[in-house]
C-alpha cells in the first residue's frame, strides 16, 4: 500500500466532516427551539384577558369536597405527611357571620391578585404574574426562602417540606420550593376549565364559575355585573381575580 500523503486533501476532508457533524448536532435543536417558540398569535398570553373565578357561597355546601379532591388528584398532592406541612392548594372553609350567625361554606385558594404581594416580595422574581392574571411560581428560580408565604394575606401558599414521588408530568413540583394554585394553567391554555371548577360542575353544586373577567360577553363578566360580589380583604386593594357571591 503506497498511498500518497496530501495535506490539502486531509484538511478539506476534515473541514467537510466537521461541518456535517456540527450540522447534524445543531440543526435539530435549532429547529425544535424555533418550533417551540412559534406561538400562534391567537394563542399568545396577553393582558386582553384576565382569568378569574366567581364562587357562589349560597350553592357551596359544607359536606362537599369535590373541588379539593379534584385538585389533589390533578396535581398529585398525595403525600402522606402531618397536616401542618401538607400542601394545600385549595381548602374548604366554613364561616359564621359574627353579627347574624349565618353560615357559609367556600373553597379558598390563591386569589390571583392583580397586585400580588407574593410577587412584590420575591427576591429572585420566581413568583410572577402572567399577563392574563394567573399568579405562578417559577420552580427553576425559587430558592425556598418562603418570604412569599409570609406576605400572602390569604395563606394560599405551601412549602414542599418532603421528598416527592409520583409527580404528574403536567404539574411539576419540587422539594424545597413554594407552590400554590396555578388555576391549572396548562388546561386553561388548552381552552379547558381548571380541575376544581370541572369537578364542582360534575360532582358538586355548580358553585364555581371560571372565565375571562375582561370579556364583556363571558358569563362571569355578566354575572359579576349583575350581582354584588365580595373580594376577600378588599381593604388591601389587591383586586383579587377570585370573587365570592353571597358572602
Amino acid at each position, binding site marked *: 500500500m503506497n498511498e500518497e500523503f496530501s495535506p490539502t486533501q486531509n484538511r478539506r476532508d476534515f473541514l467537510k466532516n466537521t461541518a456535517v457533524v456540527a450540522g447534524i448536532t445543531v440543526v435539530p435543536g435549532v429547529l425544535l427551539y424555533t418550533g417551540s417558540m412559534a406561538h400562534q398569535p391567537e394563542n399568545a398570553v396577553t393582558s386582553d384577558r384576565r382569568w378569574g373565578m366567581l364562587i357562589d357561597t349560597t350553592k357551596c355546601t*359544607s359536606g362537599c369536597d369535590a373541588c*379539593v379532591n379534584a385538585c389533589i388528584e390533578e396535581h398529585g398532592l398525595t403525600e402522606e*405527611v402531618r*397536616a*401542618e*406541612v*401538607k*400542601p*394545600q392548594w385549595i*381548602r*374548604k*372553609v*366554613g*364561616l*359564621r*357571620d*359574627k*353579627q347574624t350567625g349565618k*353560615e*357559609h361554606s367556600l373553597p*379558598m385558594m390563591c386569589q390571583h391578585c392583580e397586585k400580588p*404581594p407574593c*410577587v*412584590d*416580595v*420575591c*427576591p*429572585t*422574581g420566581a413568583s410572577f404574574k402572567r399577563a392574563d392574571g394567573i399568579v405562578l411560581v417559577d420552580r427553576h*428560580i*425559587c*430558592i*425556598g*426562602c*418562603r*418570604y412569599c*408565604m*409570609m*406576605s*400572602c*394575606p*390569604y*395563606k394560599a*401558599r*405551601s*412549602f*414542599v*417540606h*418532603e*421528598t416527592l414521588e409520583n409527580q404528574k408530568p403536567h404539574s411539576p413540583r*419540587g*422539594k*424545597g*420550593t*413554594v407552590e400554590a394554585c396555578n388555576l391549572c394553567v396548562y388546561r386553561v391554555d388548552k381552552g379547558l376549565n381548571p380541575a376544581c371548577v370541572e369537578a364542582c360542575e360534575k360532582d358538586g353544586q355548580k358553585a364555581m364559575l371560571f372565565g375571562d373577567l375582561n370579556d364583556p360577553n363571558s358569563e362571569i363578566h355578566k354575572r359579576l355585573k349583575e350581582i354584588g360580589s365580595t373580594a*376577600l*380583604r378588599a*381593604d*388591601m386593594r389587591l383586586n383579587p381575580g377570585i370573587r365570592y357571591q353571597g358572602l
Partner: protein
Amino acid sequence: MKKVNFCVIEGKSAGFYGGIVISTLMILLGLFAAYNMEHHGHIITGMNNQIVWGMPHIFAIFLILAASGVLNVASISSVFRKVFYHPLARLSALLAITLLLGGLSVLVLDLGRPDRIVVAMTSYNFKSIFAWNIVLYNGFLVVCAIYLWFMMERRMQRYYPTVGLIAFIWRLILTTGTGSIFGFLVAREAYHTAVMAPLFIALSLALGLAVFLIVLFIDDCSEKQCSLGEGVLHRPKTLLGVFIGAVFYFVLVYHISHLYFTGRHGVEYFILAGSGIYTVLFWGGYFFLGTILPLLLLYHERFSHSHVSIVAASFLTLLGGFALLYVIIIGGQAYPLEIFPGMEVISSGFFDQAKIHSYIPSGWEIMLGMSGIGISALLTVLALRILPFMPSSLADSEIEEAFRC
C-alpha cells in the same frame, strides 16, 4: 496622642484551642443539621406551612443585627472622632464581618434550595426588600473589608474616616432594610409598621455593643493576666445603657401604636397578656432579664463598678434581644391571619380556625442556628491569630493618652 501597638494573639492558651474546638464542633453540628434538612426536607424541623420562619431565622437576624451594631465602636472612633475608641476600631470592624458571615450562613443553609444561592445573586426583583438586603449585606462586607484595610494600611489612613462614614451610613440602611423585611408585610397584624426599622436599628446598636464588650472581656482574660482597663469597659457601658433604653422606647412605641388601633387589639392581647410562651418571653425574657436587670447592673451604684456586672449586663442584653426577636418573628406568625373580617371560622382544612398556630423548634434548627455563632467565633479567633487587630494591651495605662482625648 500616644501610638498604640497592635499585635496578633499568642494562640497558645487553653482558651484559644478550646475556642477553636468548640466553635468547630458547633459548625460541624450545624452542617450536619443542614445536610439532613436538605436531604429529608424541612419536614424534620418544627417549621411548617403556618409558622414559616423559625429558629434559624431568629439566630440569623440576631447575628445580622449584632454585626451591624458591633461597628459602633469603629464608628464612634472615625465618624464621631472619639479617639478613645480608636484602638478598638479594628476589632469592631472585624467582628462586623465575622458576625454577618455567621448570620448569612444560617440564612442560606435554611433555604429550601441553598444550592441555588447563585440564582439569588444573579436574578433580582428590585421591588423586593429581600433582594435589596442581599445587595446591602454583600455591600456591607465589602465596605467593612475596605474600612479595615484603610485602618491597617498606613498610606490609606487619611481616607479611613471617609470610609468609616460610608460604613456608618451603610449599616443604618442595612438595619433599616432588615427591619423592613417585617415592616413591609402588609398582611400580618404584628408586623406592618414603619417602627420596625428604627426598632431594629436600636436593637442592633444594643446587641452589637453587648457582643463587643463580651468579646473584649473573653479575649483579654483568656490570653493573659486580665489587664482590661476600667475606662475601656466603663465608657461603652454607659452607651450600652442608652441603647437598651432606646430599644425599650421603640418597643413601647410599637405596642402603644398597636394598642391604639382597634383592629390590632387581638394580637396585642395575645403577646402582652395571652399567658403563652410569647407573653412569658416578652415580660420575663425581654423586659425583666433583657432590660430592667442589665440597666440595674449598669447604673446601680452597688454593681456598676464591677467588670463582672458589665459583662453580665451584656449577656443579659443578648438574652433579652433574642427573646424579643422570638416574640416578634414567631409570635407574629403564631397569631392567625384575619382572612375573613367579621366572620368566625368554624371549620377549615388548613388551620384557619386555629386560635394560635403552634411551633416547637426542633434540635436541627437549634444546631443550625448555633453554627452561625460557631462560624463567627471561629473566623474571629483565626483572624485575631493571623493579623494584628487587637491593641497589645487593654490596660488604661497603656492607652491613657488616647483616653485623655
